[in-house]
């Protein structure tokens, strides 16, 4: 990767970006999911920051962005990648996030992390996109950097641990 040309972009909640190599996409998630998909043959990848599990359960008026919800964000990222030149047969997915930040509490919304991860996985399976790696659950936030060319996700947690998937 040519460091000088490398671009860094950050996405926030319910945002999505597709970029060509060399680009690093970063975000921070707690109960949210960072879903990354990439086609390493065509050196293109993207990330979407998913907040809630199913759109129909939360967005009754159907007015909100598809990127906020797991069941609609997965096909949205897939279409965006294909429209930018990725080939579906090469596309792989990785996910990170879905933590329970307040494990002691019993409020259903605070357990949303697990539901988010489950809905993403189900939707990937439905669409035939292989989930090749994941770092989900637990009760720590994750700072994520995704290299679109290689598909590597670098994950940092506040306990000082860094891992790559």
């Amino acid at each position: 990767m040519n460091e000088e040309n490398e671009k860094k972009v950050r996405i926030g909640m319910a945002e999505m970006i597709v970029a060509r190599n060399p680009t690093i996409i970063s975000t921070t998630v707690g109960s949210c999911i960072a879903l990354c998909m990439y086609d390493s043959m065509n050196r293109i990848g993207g990330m979407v920051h998913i907040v809630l599990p199913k759109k129909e359960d939360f967005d009754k008026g159907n007015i909100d962005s598809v990127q906020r919800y797991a069941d609609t964000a997965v096909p949205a990222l897939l279409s965006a990648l294909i429209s930018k030149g990725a080939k579906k047969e090469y596309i792989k997915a990785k996910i990170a996030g879905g933590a329970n930040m307040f494990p002691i509490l019993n409020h259903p919304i605070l357990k949303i992390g697990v539901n988010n991860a489950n809905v993403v996985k189900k939707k990937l399976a439905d669409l035939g996109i292989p989930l090749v790696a994941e770092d989900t659950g637990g009760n720590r936030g994750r700072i994520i950097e995704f290299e679109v060319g290689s598909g590597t996700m670098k994950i940092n947690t506040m306990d000082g641990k860094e891992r790559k998937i």
Partner: protein
Amino acid sequence: MSGQDKSEYRRNSEMIPENEILREIGSMGAGHAATALSELIQQKISITFPEIFVAYPEEVPKKLGLHDMPVVVIYKNLQGSYDCDILLVFGREEADKIVSAMIKNTFNMEELDEEMKKSAIEEVGNIVIGSFLSAISNFTNMELLPTPPIHTTDVFDAILDVFLAKLRLQNRKAMVFQTCFKKNGEEIYGAVIIFLNEKLRDELISRGKSWLEG
């Protein structure tokens, strides 16, 4: 703003800005909290709010200079129809300072284990958040029963995630009171963040208006 400035508001505006009602709740809350903390440690602590603002929750970490930073959060929630989340947030260094300010007279910081630090900061959270709730309660004449304090340390943006997921459902904004604790000239900064639901917010504003106009 204090009670004696009420006439100023009557003169200046028909619509009393939401921020001014918040400021009033903040100043009541700060007064209660400062008294309770001072009594607890037998030394004078004062609390001021250098800045109060209303913002979309996702903007809060940047506005407080705590974007992707490790923070200590103490959290309490009001359940039921007046659902409300209140957080007291300290950057990690400020959290150590407030713990030290709380217990310096009794222990050396070196003697403290993590459990003791945790319970000291939870107590600060309990008092400060509890004082805000009493202020809201006084304003609205409602009895508000919060959950016990919960304490967590993590990246600020990640902690907010879960509140954002919840808030998204109601399109709520965050009310942020940047908070300065002063003891013996030392200043320690934190923030109180309140996510009111619409029902409680409307109640506060309507009671606040009649209080200010009364």
